[in-house]
């Protein structure tokens, strides 16, 4: 099934087609489950003016934070961006826009984008700044706001294992936003720790079916930990 073999062998191929001013949806929560090599490739390419949709923006010098160094990001759509001095500086300078979106709304916007649902109602954010300018509506006596879905030109995803057809599984809480991001990109690129042959993953345990995936690349990961907490 050559037509289904999604594996590419270089980061250049993996991110081929990314251009200035595109929207990139990225999986990950903090530094957990982030496509480290795909982010590095965007930095290397020097693509500018990006809108990046990701729960967070990495930290100084790691994760999406490295895209701030050369001012490649025009706008972030995130729920929490508090880990990053360079982010703060660019935001205060007006070099960077941020659209703060509640975490659950952000996850659902990505899922909806991938699922052909252009908009949905949620109580989250009703009566707050998040709800300003959005339609409000009552259902069964409760107030909701209308939220529109998100899709991206690219989705960059980190999975644990993928088969050659792009079927993916995630490891522990490194799953987070990755499955939704995978559905919402016009081109979805998955960076993985291990590539297996089709048939090696149990069909019912596949978390991202290959139909959502355009390219798979084998990565190497530093997996930096933001806060190491132990009980010792």
């Amino acid at each position, binding site marked *: 099934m050559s037509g289904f073999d999604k594996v590419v062998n270089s980061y250049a191929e993996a991110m081929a087609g990314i251009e200035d001013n595109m929207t990139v949806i990225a999986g990950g929560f903090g530094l957990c489950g982030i496509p480290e090599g795909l982010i590095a490739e965007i930095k290397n390419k020097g693509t500018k003016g990006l809108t990046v949709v990701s729960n967070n923006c990495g930290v100084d010098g790691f994760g999406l934070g490295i895209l701030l160094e050369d001012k490649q990001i025009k706008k972030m759509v995130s729920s929490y961006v508090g880990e990053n001095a360079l982010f703060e500086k660019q935001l205060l300078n007006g070099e960077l826009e*941020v659209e703060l979106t*509640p*975490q659950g709304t*952000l996850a659902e916007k990505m899922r909806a984008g991938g699922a052909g649902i252009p908009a949905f109602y949620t109580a989250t954010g009703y009566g707050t700044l998040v709800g300003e300018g959005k339609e409000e509506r009552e259902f069964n006596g409760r107030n909701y706001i209308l939220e529109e879905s998100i899709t991206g030109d690219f989705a960059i995803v980190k999975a644990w294992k993928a088969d050659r057809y792009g079927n993916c599984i995630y490891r*522990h809480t490194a799953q987070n936003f990755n499955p*939704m991001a995978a559905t919402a990109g016009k081109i979805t690129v998955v960076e993985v720790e291990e590539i297996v042959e089709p048939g090696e993953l149990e069909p019912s345990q596949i*978390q991202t079916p290959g139909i959502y995936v355009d390219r798979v690349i084998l990565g190497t990961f530093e997996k930096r930990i933001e806060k190491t907490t132990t009980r*010792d």
Partner: protein
Amino acid sequence: MALSREQIAQRVAKEFNDGDYVNLGIGIPTLAANYVPSDIDVMLQSENGLLGMGPYPTADEVDADMINAGKETVTTATGAAIFSSAESFAMIRGGHVDVTVLGAFEVDQEGNIASYMIPGKLVKGMGGAMDLVAGAENIIVTMTHANKHGESKLLSKCTLPLTGVNCITKIITDLAVLEISEGAFVLKETAPGVSIEEIQEKTAGKLIVPADVKEMTFS
């Protein structure tokens, strides 16, 4: 005397029932996990995609792929489930979490809460807090009763940007346990050695003091 952070957490833990699924925010709420009564069990939900959060790992067990919503390394409890962010907030937004405990800058007598943004200071974002307060039926706010300048955080109307409206029903502070009902704070319990007068003085919003106010107990 005003409660310590640990004592607030200890009082919060008394709110839990056997079999509760509980989401604990960063700070004092997280400490409540240390005081769950020994005869009950609760399961901790962490909004990054974990139901059944266990203790911190040993140094050997530390795994970058196993973190909680505070981005700390954790373990799983027996019977845990791990899932995507969409699934995690489906359970939060859908009202499946029994108890949510979170901190706040301000709460008002209408049950509004402000907890994520102070104008003029850099906004870091609301994370999952807006979803949590919109989703849970039973939301407990923990905070000091007044700020360090002695100004009340229990107001007639929140002054800071809101995290959610008409959603808070219970507040546990360093001075008191209060419920919000019909546009007023209702005093339920006082911290040991704290007078009703002090609570009245430090509550800017409408305060109702019923006849049967009790002194807090911790176990």
